[in-house]
């Protein structure tokens, strides 16, 4: 026992020592408190299962956070995948003389000035969430990792096994889709 001096795990103290921190970390990244509680619980369960793999190199909390991050990524992948089956639309001509130019029906329209001013509006948040949930899974996951988790490009690429240029194509298309969705459901109204 005494040979392990640094960084040990003590599951009996996890709830008191870390649950508030993990909960707070999660609640800023997912939408409901119930869900945040579930994710924290799953994190502890996974932690218990993985205890034998803990090598004492990281502090207990850091180690738990790394498990928690994976749980949040899993959640992003799962949410509303039934709705998110829609394909992303093409925005530009893909071949011919006009290759790379805007398709007429995808050209951005002017937005209503009044609507543009009120970006703190709570209903706008609802529309944004709906638009994000309508993104196909891969696009939603990458977009959320970049925008909510603020992962570095490299971290996301490693996590999902994609190249940086793949990542930019995905984010580019996701944002085109979001822009159009917000235009149709909020700004052009």
């Amino acid at each position, binding site marked *: 026992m005494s040979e392990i001096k640094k960084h040990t795990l003590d599951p009996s103290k996890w709830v008191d020592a870390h649950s508030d921190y993990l909960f*707070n970390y999660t609640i800023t990244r997912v939408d409901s408190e119930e869900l945040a509680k579930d994710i924290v619980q799953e994190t502890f*369960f996974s932690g218990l299962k993985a205890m034998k793999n803990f090598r004492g190199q990281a502090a207990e909390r850091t180690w738990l956070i790394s498990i928690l991050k994976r749980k949040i990524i899993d959640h992003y992948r799962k949410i509303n995948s039934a709705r998110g089956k829609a394909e992303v639309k093409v925005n530009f001509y893909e071949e011919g003389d006009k290759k790379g130019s805007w398709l007429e029906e995808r050209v951005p329209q002017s937005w209503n000035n009044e609507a543009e001013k009120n970006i703190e509006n709570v209903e706008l948040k609802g529309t944004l969430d709906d638009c994000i949930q309508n993104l196909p899974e891969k696009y939603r996951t990458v977009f959320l990792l970049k925008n909510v988790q603020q992962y570095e490009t490299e971290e996301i690429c490693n996590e999902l096994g994609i190249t940086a240029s793949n990542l930019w194509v995905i984010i*580019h298309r996701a944002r085109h889709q979001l822009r159009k969705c917000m235009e149709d459901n909020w700004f052009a109204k």
Partner: protein
Amino acid sequence: MGNKLFISCDEATTICTKNQYKEASFFEKLKLNIHILHCKVCGLYAKQNSKLTEICKVHLDKPKCDKKMSDADKDALKERLKEFNQ
């Protein structure tokens, strides 16, 4: 993306998106600006894309909050962990 100075709308909007995350290179930004000089549609897109970034900042990067789990929740969680560990 190649080395040409004149780019398509598709490339221009891709750079515009990279730029939202401050990850576009100097040369990319130069190409984007040249493109926007003669392409009104991409100019409008760039403006709306920045708006989208603003909206995401407000609604997705939620400010740090200070929420705690209730004691009842914690006790329940302890119980479940104990059961799980047996």
